[in-house]
């Protein structure tokens, strides 16, 4: 979840009054956030990814004013007349959507510039999906070379002055020589020859989603902002623009300015759209979802405090939610907002009343029975990681199976999902050589493999048993595993079979009621030596999923 830092005085100024430490903590808690640290100067808080509007002090203040009852209902937006700016959108297949807007009277004084950049970066990571889905550019409106904007694909030899470089470069150079170019340069590049760009007059002011131009750079003296949002999802692009503009405009006397946009189809739009959605839900639906007994008026009052506009009409709540809420998909989202305004600590708790009959999973039950039998014969139960090193896993791979390999293991020690319990047992014995001999251990766990033909995944629950001593024999492990199978009322037998990783002539298939269900054998000294195990070891493995079929 994203973490942001705000100036405390600016936050309190936006809320309209000072907030005590505890009060601030409680309020943030109620909007799903958590105060991480708090001082006189700074608030550091974590917010959830469904509420990007809380990533800016203006947005958090807007929510807190509602909860505190300072200002409820839909926020009033100040939208000024036409800005005189015009954007023509051409066909840009790699990044088709763009939204633009102006915010007037938003001076970047004090720490505001830092908070604005933080807002932009957090939006890139969350709703922006690391700039793939949505990217934001913010410009100094007053530096704009021309009110005529064009969004089109540019050739890589076209020139621009990337932000903070101070020199003219080709787009190709910008992509290869700037840090942002190397990180985001391939996202919207088409056919290695065309890249989206925003032009003002003939000059590139932005190369979305990579970098802006130095021409319209933000500075502490900047007062009026031009915002562009580009991306691959129309809805996400337009809603992000709504979110940005409506949030910044919370700071008085800021106002939103609209821009005329001509789409590739010739249609005209006025950005930002500032679209507010409506939902209907019955009061009964709210109460049935929450277990509450709120009246329609009470429910509407809760919604107003969450900055909705709500009217009750008979048993129905008709509600409008603000343009910055990207998380409202369904009437159930309205229900949650009511619960949040109510406070979860003031919701009723209904203790369980129904009497239901429990049922244990049969395989889980068998695993406990088998484990108890093994423990009863002195085999200490161990429980270790299911991810193991490749070499040992492949050593004990069952015939005609492939291991489950991870694409992105965190280390060589945990590169594959174990295909057998033998690797787990041996890794345990290696770490337990200080224990008194003879050492008997067992472990029950999931093993998984893929068939060589057809790539069919197989996952079973398996029991492994091992004995380590100054000297061990095949019978030292064969006898207990036989005893375990017999105790389950089944018939064990062995069938001579040389398995890799075992001493030749001393390993066998383990059969249960004449069906293959495991392996028994003395571990090859070559494996013991590689692991650094100084004593002989014998192991047995029993497939409990197969055994269950006989019970």
């Amino acid at each position: 979840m994203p973490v942001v830092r705000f100036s405390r005085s600016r936050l309190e100024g936006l809320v309209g009054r000072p907030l005590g430490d505890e009060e601030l903590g409680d309020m943030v808690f109620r909007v799903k956030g958590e105060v991480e640290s708090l001082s006189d100067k700074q608030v550091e808080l974590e917010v959830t990814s469904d509420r990007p509007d809380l990533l800016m002090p203006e947005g958090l203040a807007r929510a807190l004013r509602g909860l505190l009852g300072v200002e409820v209902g839909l926020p009033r937006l100040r939208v000024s007349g036409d800005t005189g700016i015009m954007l023509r959108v051409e066909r840009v297949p790699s990044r088709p959507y763009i939204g633009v807007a102006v915010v007037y009277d938003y001076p970047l004084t004090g720490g505001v510039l830092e908070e604005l950049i933080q807002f932009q970066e957090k939006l890139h990571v969350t709703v922006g999906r690391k700039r793939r889905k949505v990217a934001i550019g913010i410009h100094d409106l007053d530096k704009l070379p021309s009110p005529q904007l064009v969004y089109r694909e540019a050739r890589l030899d076209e020139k621009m002055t990337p932000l903070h470089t101070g020199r003219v470069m080709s787009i190709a150079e910008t992509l290869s020589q700037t840090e942002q170019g190397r990180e985001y340069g391939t996202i919207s590049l088409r056919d290695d020859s065309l890249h989206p760009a925003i032009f003002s007059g003939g000059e590139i002011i932005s190369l979305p989603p990579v970098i802006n131009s130095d021409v319209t750079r933000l500075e502490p003296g900047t007062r009026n902002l031009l915002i562009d949002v580009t991306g691959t999802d129309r809805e996400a692009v337009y809603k992000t623009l709504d979110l940005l503009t409506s949030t910044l405009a919370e700071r008085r006397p800021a106002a939103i300015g609209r821009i005329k946009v001509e789409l590739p189809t010739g249609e005209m739009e006025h950005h930002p759209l500032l679209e507010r959605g409506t939902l209907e839900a019955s009061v009964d639906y709210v109460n049935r979802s929450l277990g509450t007994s709120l009246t329609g008026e009470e429910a509407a009052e809760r919604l107003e405090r969450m900055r909705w506009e709500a009217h009750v009409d008979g048993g129905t709540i008709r509600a409008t939610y603000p343009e910055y809420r990207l998380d409202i998909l369904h009437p159930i989202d309205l229900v949650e907002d009511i619960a949040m305004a109510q406070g979860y600590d003031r919701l009723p708790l209904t203790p369980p009343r129904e009497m239901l009959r429990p049922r244990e999973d049969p395989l889980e039950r068998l695993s406990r029975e088998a484990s108890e039998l093994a423990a009863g014969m002195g085999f200490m139960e161990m429980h270790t990681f299911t991810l193991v090193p490749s070499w040992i896993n492949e050593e004990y791979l069952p015939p005609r199976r492939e291991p489950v390999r991870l694409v992105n293991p965190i280390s060589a020690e945990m590169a594959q999902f174990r295909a057998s319990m033998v690797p787990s047992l041996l890794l345990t014995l290696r770490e337990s050589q200080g224990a008194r001999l003879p050492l008997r251990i067992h472990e029950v766990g999931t093993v998984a493999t893929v068939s060589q033909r057809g790539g069919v995944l197989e996952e079973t629950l398996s029991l492994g048993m091992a004995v380590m001593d100054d000297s061990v024999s095949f019978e030292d492990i064969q006898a207990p595993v036989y005893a375990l199978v017999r105790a389950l009322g089944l018939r064990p037998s062995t069938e001579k079979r040389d398995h890799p990783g075992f001493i030749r002539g001393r390993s066998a298939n383990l059969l249960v009621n004449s069906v293959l269900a495991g392996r028994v054998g003395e571990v090859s000294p070559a494996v013991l030596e590689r692991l650094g195990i100084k004593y002989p070891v014998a192991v047995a493995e029993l497939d409990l999923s197969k055994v269950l079929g006989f019970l």
Partner: protein
Amino acid sequence: MEEDKGLAKTLVLTDNERRVLSSIINLGGTAWVEDLSSATGLPQSTVMSVLELLKSKGLVKEESIYREEYRATPQGLKALGEGFPEEKLIKLLLQHNGELEVRRARELLGEETSIAIGEARKRGAVAIQGGVIRLLKAPLEAIGEEKELLRAISEGKEPPGGREGLIESLRRRGLVEKRMRRRTRVTAVMPLAKKVLEESVTAVARLTGEDIVSGRWRTLVLKDYNVEAEPPLLFPGERHFLIRFIDLVRRIMFEMGFTEVRGPIVVEEFWNFDALFQAQDHPSREIHDTFWVQHEPGGIRAPPEVIERTRRVHETGGDSGSRGWGGSWDPRVAARLILRTQTTSVTVRALADRPMVPFRIFTVGKVYRPDAIDARHLPEFYQLDGIMSEPGMDFSRLLGMLKEFFNRLGFEKVRFKPAYFPFTEPSVEGYVWMEGKGWVEVFGAGMFRPEILEIAGVEENVGAWGIGLDRIAMKFLEVEDIRLLYTRNVNQARELSTRLRRLEHRLLGERR
């Protein structure tokens, strides 16, 4: 009484005592100890200690006989190997045409030079004139005789008689040494020994089945044990502490009427994300947050109608009343194999089987996230996931169930906080009060979103939750390092098993 006791004591012979005593009698009533060892087959040390017991019972007498004995010294053994010093000198002289300066001889023979010259002169083999050694006669026959004697002595043979003079000269040269050797001879006290052998009972260490069946136990005397000595170390075969903790949790679930289900660990993203209405471009599906499995592209193991409903819900909301995520849903992304990141992948599958309402279902299992290992993070850990529904199911019943569960686990104070999960609405994070730690977040929960109910094909509201078990287990075990829960060190596992047992008793005690 005193006399009876004494008699009884003499009448008790152990098996070894009986063997040694009868061997002495068989060897004619008197025997050397070393012979007894071979006659009884017992090691000499055992024979000696048995004899001590027989002596104390007055059944044998012992006498020691001392004899002179010669033995080769280290110098003697050296002379045997390399030749006597005077031999070496004569060999040198022969190589130098019968003349050698003393100074030069010293360089060649080192510290043996003086002995060599002295002995050779004594034998009349050399003479010294003006610092030069001259050879008078060679070879030295007498040396052969001395050598033979020395060899015999070094091999432990009895030297032949009449050579005392020669032996004495070897001894003076330090090539042999004289030692006194003790030999022990024991004699059975007759006729008592014979009588005791015939009449005594045998004392035994271990009672055998044969002793009982044959009735011989009546005449046996069982030796006293040192019952206060430390026995050999043993370790019980124990169940693992973490599994026992999980079973404690499972027991609570069973008591509350839950049915247990199991599901695979290697799953299609479909069951882990898509069926839970997690958008296909959601960050947690990326490679930094999910383990991907290498595999050939394949299908989704799910009923076709469930897959179709999932597509529609993602794209447009389907019949759920939702707006959906928009865009187009890609079945190839949903078919990718991963290690499950949440056991909700198991409960949602159980939900898609459309259980009869009311139902309470749970699963416990490992989940996987590519986190680097440290004291607080592991790439694999345990989760408990539950779902429940009943007629009139609502959020308050979910919260009531969760509070009841944590109360039964021993946490009296539970706190709920609004939260965000893609698949529940309303969503809640749960905290419990842990002494010494404060409020600790232990679960995430909520009502399954209508989108999920639509995908699963379920009408009634369903509450769902996931609980990370490791952190609660750490609290129970008073362990600060999560890695200890999965230790590969058996001794550590034994220690933690004992700790859990003691803590369980203490907790139960507190609750009584």
